[in-house]
């Protein structure tokens, strides 16, 4: 059975398709709406107005703006909390429920919370709940937390697809009402590329639902003409259902359309976002059935919904009378009109209503509204005559009604303008906010700039269109505007004080937060009189609607209470976003790159356990996890005794070329490179300006002006960035390129490495004299052009072979093949780390921290003292005069069955912490536990250090000379 008792005939309802019904459910009950209906409009058509319960007092609430501005329309969908019912369209079988109730939405067990509101004065949670000590966390916080929040989050909510798209244009026009459309047309006609952004599904803005004349004709006529012109304009791209959700520096605009975010950079920005109608403040002003006038108009014209049967209107401007005409024409009886103005202006619209015989009470307000017996809807209002600011006579007139429409004033939709740095001011005469001091490329058009009549809206749009063109240096002389009307400058009608306190309270200033008149006033009385303090103390404006309906009233109340002007009090800072935005949309598709070396698949085939190293995947060890320790031990020994292969492709590679290449390295690194011989490599140590070690590697000199520089896997990106950063200042004649991914690298190491390499490399003299330790060569390996570095990476005879990444796998295969007779084995980075530890090599960022200097790790040998400058040099000199309290030492412990020390165990001196273990492992070559630790600076080999194990036990370790293995370094120099 169709229960859409409030549905109007097909002659109205721009958004809805009267031929297509959709069934959905609300609170477990099925309803029918039309395609194009929002949840709220479809429910309204079914005469369902109660949507949710309020945050604090659990009061019944429904729509007020029909524009998605308030918290009270937030409903729960499956898997999605806090959905604005007056914006989300219904879809077949959509399951909707209300939010924040205990029991049922209609009969909330917490509905009487409001009765205790006097015991919950503003900021009450600061004033109590803490005696005796500890009671807050133990008792009260859990009670409060349980009540917090609105909707429910679903841990298993289905994963949606979100994406992003970049856009660029000359002019972005936000809002497609009369002003936005005319501004866009002028700009487009002048030849600019325009993007017109509209949050609704159809262009037109207020032309779609407002009434600008007594006959009710001009809006649609104007709309049709402007839209035709826009469609005919190839320069205008239209985005509907798209919200420009913030303004970021230089017109960088996130435009959200469904699950997509456009990131738009606009040269010029026109904000034609219109105005937000404001509620009036009186007793029970929050009851369902109390709508803003514009909401009633939206229901009628956009959704073909009659907002009620019998209405009262509270107004202070022409808009209230326009709403009254709309209601009358759509079969709603008007019980009374209360006009806050002592003598309303007799405009044509007013006259028409007056002639209709509707009772108009000038100088009256709605003093209170009363609810139906179920408490869930308005049933009547009480009118009183106004005798002063916020004061009324005691006599009242009562009118039954199921609808109250409020039109007492507006604020501009100013959020984006304020985000751009615009300042808000308040004019006491017109009682309205206005905006100034905008960036030069930011323009206001239409109602957001205070205009109200159609003529002035169009005119404002035309003027703005021209201003935009002027900024872009375009001529607009020949351009005719689409619509011109004789314009008289005017502003919309704001009443300065639509605020009427009541002895029983419940005159809500902020509906989101259930804040009443007294809460704001009392916040000032408590001393919180700066507007930001009022906000923070009372929470006014902090709810989901971010003060859209409360900012103006709060400013007026605070100004009044503290005897300042509204302008002086101001509003709180406007922050992005404009509308609440889904986190999924902001994140988009996640982009977390993974990098694989050229040999990755071979590692997998060989059974490697892959581990992450920065963004790369590297083989940890080859074999089953259950045999981990044995694998690492075997891999260690294969290099010590035979020959092994390590994939070192992830190590950073940088080409540094140019006449100043050596000078550049001299400045970037601690060592000296000017006199480095061609064909030789040299250690690199990089410090930051504070003298902290930040990376290491080797520099290979292939010619006077060409160095090939290596860096650590995790450090190379930062090294590259740092190099570019410095050279923008130094302007040395040098070219720096990060070639990390362009090369694959394989380290072949072990006493048999020369023999294996010899089989696939015959254009380089590999003899100890022909290719000595620390030399570098270019040649071919397995017919692949290669760079060879003889470095002491793992402390054995070894070669690092760098080849184009595309050839990495071929090189790996060739070396494994020719190494077969030596039983060559692949070696992972776990064994590599151990091999390097045995040689006492530090790992930057493991054995160093964010303050470690070369002095602390005994690497002053790598500092060239005679250079005039290098980054960090000055600090290192100073540090020489202020020696550190700690240094890195090597220690050994006899291997035993007991608890072994772990990395990060602390070193104690008495009870004081003096350092910690940075690396520790069992060395199969030495059959001891070896490690590096920070200890007191005066610690010397032969002494003991105290290690506090994770269990709390303290053990002693012997400090020894380093390296632990092959102290004379004979093996790597073979």
């Amino acid at each position, binding site marked *: 059975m169709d229960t859409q008792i409030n549905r109007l005939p097909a002659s109205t309802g721009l958004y809805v398709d009267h031929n297509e019904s959709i069934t959905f459910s609300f609170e477990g009950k099925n309803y029918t709406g039309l395609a194009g209906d929002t949840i709220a409009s479809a429910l309204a058509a079914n005469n369902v107005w109660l949507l949710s319960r309020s945050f604090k007092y659990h009061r019944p609430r429904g729509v007020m703006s029909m524009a998605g501005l308030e918290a009270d329309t937030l409903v729960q969908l499956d898997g999605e909390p806090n959905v604005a019912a007056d914006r989300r369209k219904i879809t077949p079988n959509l399951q909707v429920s209300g939010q924040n109730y205990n029991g049922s939405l209609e009969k909330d067990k917490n509905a009487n919370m409001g009765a205790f509101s006097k015991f919950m004065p503003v900021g009450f949670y600061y004033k109590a709940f803490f005696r005796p000590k500890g009671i807050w966390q133990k008792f009260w916080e859990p009670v409060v937390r349980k009540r917090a929040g609105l909707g429910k989050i679903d841990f298993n909510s289905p994963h949606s697809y979100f994406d992003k798209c970049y856009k660029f244009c000359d002019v972005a026009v936000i809002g497609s009402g009369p002003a936005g459309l005319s501004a866009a047309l002028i700009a487009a006609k002048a030849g600019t590329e325009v993007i017109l952004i509209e949050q609704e599904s159809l262009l037109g803005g207020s032309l779609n639902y407002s009434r600008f004349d007594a006959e009710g004709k001009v809006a649609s006529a104007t709309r049709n003409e402007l839209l035709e012109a826009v469609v005919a304009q190839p320069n205008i791209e239209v985005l509907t259902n798209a919200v420009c959700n913030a303004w*970021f520096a230089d017109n960088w605009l996130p435009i959200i359309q469904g699950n997509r975010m456009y990131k738009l950079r606009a040269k010029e920005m026109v904000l034609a976002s219109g105005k937000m109608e404001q509620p009036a403040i009186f007793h029970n002003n929050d009851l369902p059935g109390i709508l803003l006038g514009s909401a009633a108009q939206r229901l009628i014209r956009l959704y073909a919904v009659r907002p009620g049967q019998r209405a009262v209107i509270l107004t202070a401007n022409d808009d209230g009378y326009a709403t009254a005409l709309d209601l009358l024409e759509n079969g709603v009886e008007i019980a009374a009109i209360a006009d806050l103005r002592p003598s309303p202006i007799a405009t044509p619209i007013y006259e028409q209503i007056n002639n209709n015989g509707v009772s108009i009470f000038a100088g009256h307000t709605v003093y209170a509204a009363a609810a139906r017996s179920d408490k869930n809807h308005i049933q009547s209002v009480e009118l009183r005559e106004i005798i002063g600011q916020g004061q009324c006579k005691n006599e009242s007139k009562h009118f039954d009604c199921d609808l109250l429409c409020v039109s007492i004033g507006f604020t501009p939709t100013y959020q984006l303008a304020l985000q751009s740095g615009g300042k808000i001011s308040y004019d006491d005469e017109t009682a309205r906010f206005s905006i100034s001091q905008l960036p030069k490329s930011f323009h206001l058009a239409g109602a957001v700039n205070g205009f109200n009549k159609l003529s002035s809206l169009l005119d404002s749009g035309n003027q703005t269109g021209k201003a935009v063109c002027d900024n872009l240096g375009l001529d607009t002389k020949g351009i005719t505007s689409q619509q011109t009307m004789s314009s008289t400058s005017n502003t919309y009608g704001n009443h300065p004080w639509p605020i009427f306190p009541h002895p029983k309270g419940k005159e809500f200033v902020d509906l989101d937060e259930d804040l009443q008149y007294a809460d704001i006033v009392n916040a000032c009385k408590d001393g919180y009189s700066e507007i930001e303090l009022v906000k923070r103390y009372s929470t006014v404006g902090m709810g989901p609607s971010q003060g859209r309906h409360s900012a103006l009233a709060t400013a007026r109340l605070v100004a009044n209470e503290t005897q300042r002007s509204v302008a002086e009090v101001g509003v709180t800072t406007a922050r992005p976003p404009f509308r609440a935005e889904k986190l999924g949309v902001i994140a988009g598709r996640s982009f977390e790159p993974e990098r694989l070396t050229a040999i990755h698949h071979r590692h997998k085939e060989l059974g490697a356990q892959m581990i992450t190293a920065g963004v790369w995947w590297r083989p940890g060890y080859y074999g089953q996890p259950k045999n981990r320790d044995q694998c690492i031990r075997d891999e260690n020994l294969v290099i010590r005794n035979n020959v092994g292969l390590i994939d070192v492709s992830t190590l950073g590679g940088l080409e540094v070329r140019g006449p100043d290449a050596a000078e550049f390295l001299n400045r970037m690194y601690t060592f000296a490179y000017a006199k480095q011989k061609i064909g030789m490599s040299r250690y690199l140590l990089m410090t930051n300006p504070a003298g902290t070690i930040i990376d290491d590697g080797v520099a290979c000199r292939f010619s006077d002006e060409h160095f090939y520089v290596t860096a650590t896997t995790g450090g190379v990106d930062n090294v590259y960035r740092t190099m570019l950063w410095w050279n923008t200042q130094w302007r040395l004649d040098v070219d720096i390129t990060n070639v990390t991914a362009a090369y694959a690298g394989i380290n072949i190491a072990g006493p048999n490495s020369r023999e294996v390499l010899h089989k696939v490399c015959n254009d380089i003299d590999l003899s100890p004299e022909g290719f000595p330790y620390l030399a570098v060569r270019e040649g071919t390996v397995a017919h692949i052009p290669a760079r060879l570095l003889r470095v002491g990476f793992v402390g054995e005879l070894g070669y690092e072979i760098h080849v184009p990444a595309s050839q990495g796998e071929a090189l790996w295969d060739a070396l494994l093949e020719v190494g077969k007779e030596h039983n060559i084995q692949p070696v992972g980075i776990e064994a590599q780390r151990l091999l390097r530890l045995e040689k006492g090599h530090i790992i930057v960022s493991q054995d160093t921290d964010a303050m470690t200097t070369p002095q602390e790790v005994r690497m002053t040998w790598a500092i060239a003292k005679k250079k005039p400058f290098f980054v960090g040099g000055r600090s290192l000199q100073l540090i020489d005069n202020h020696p550190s309290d700690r240094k890195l030492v090597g220690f050994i412990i006899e291997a035993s069955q007991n608890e072994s020390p772990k990395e990060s165990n602390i070193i104690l001196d008495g009870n004081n912490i003096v350092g910690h273990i940075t690396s520790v492992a069992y060395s199969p070559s030495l059959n001891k536990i070896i490690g590096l630790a920070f200890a007191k600076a005066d610690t010397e080999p032969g002494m003991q250090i105290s290690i506090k194990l994770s269990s709390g036990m303290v053990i002693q370790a012997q400090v020894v000379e380093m390296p632990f293995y092959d102290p004379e370094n004979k093996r790597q120099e073979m």
Partner: protein
Amino acid sequence: MPLGLLKYGFASKYPARRDIPAPKDLNKSYDVVIIGAGGHGLSTAYHLARYHGITNVAVLDKGYIGGGNTARNTAVVRSNYISPEAVAFYKASVELFKNLANELGYNQMYSQRGQLTLAHSDASVRTFTLRAEVNKHLGVRSEMVDRKQIREIVPCLNMGKNMRFPIQAGLWHRDGGTARHDSIAWGYAMRAAQMGVEIHQRTEVTGVNINAGKVTAIETNRGTIQCNHAIQAVAGMSSVVAKMAGIQLPIRSYPLQAMVTQPVKPFLDPLVSSAGLHAYVSQTARGEIVIGGGSDPYELYSTRSTLDLKESLIAHTLELFPFFAELKLLRQWAGITDMTPDYSPIMGESPVKNYWLDAGWGTWGFKATPISGKCMAETIAQEKTAAMIQPFHLDRFKTFKLSNEAGATAASH
């Protein structure tokens, strides 16, 4: 219903409690002028009045009280630092937090709901282990937890191996918690004012007068006031104000942003942070989810918000909590953070006699509000840097005796 609220319920007229005094004229001179009415300045004022009997004090702020970073921070209160001096300092602050509401008669809603910091890499596991070891040694409740324990602490966390950098382990800090940030400033303001301290809002300091190496007066937009002592506690403006006294600080100032979602029913009690993802998350008493991350990449004195940071921060947050995709962001904001080279504050003596520094609070100073005030008050009263803050002395940058907190500050503030 707590008894404290009964009087409000039964009173016929609202029994206003003037927490923050009404504006009044400036005196010609004060014993102590405190520049900056943020949490730190007000805490100092309170401790001077309450424990040292010094009440001829003016606290000046160019804006409203607590409107700087006190108003903008994400209220992480923890003591799981890495250097022994910092652990001792922040631990002392946590102790003060525990009794703060009762000491001030103002509820800060301080709650130790625990903080879980996630490690996604070996390097983080090592650093966290070190923090746990140091903390345990100094009596702070921190321990390493494995994936199974993490699941128990925060069941809704994404423990999937398909995450780009799966969670390996965590640092579980039971002493970690949070408080209602603004109310710290208000509570101290209320009690300080009751003891005679003057608080002047909308009073901007524009100059510092020095005679023979000693501070003599403070210039403001409302006139010049004489003083015997002055202390600056201006957070993001430390370099600018110090410069008025001719002092150069080793500080770089970066914006730090944070954001909050619409309220949802509570589901997350502990504070969760991830060093690798540069993101941290908590749920407030109102049900909102607060999300924060690392500082912006370049120096700036503007509190504008940016889209770029929001995009990357939220993307990272969704790695931890994929179902947040359906949550809605309500507000984003920024504050200016004064970063020191070693991520520790600069406190105590300055090159100008009787001009005291409480600066370099970077992204981590909220939790120090009680202890800083206590130590700075002691410093001023004794005219000598208090022992506990000696390691944070400005001179350490000359002698390279830095107090390294880089490893314990990233992304959990």
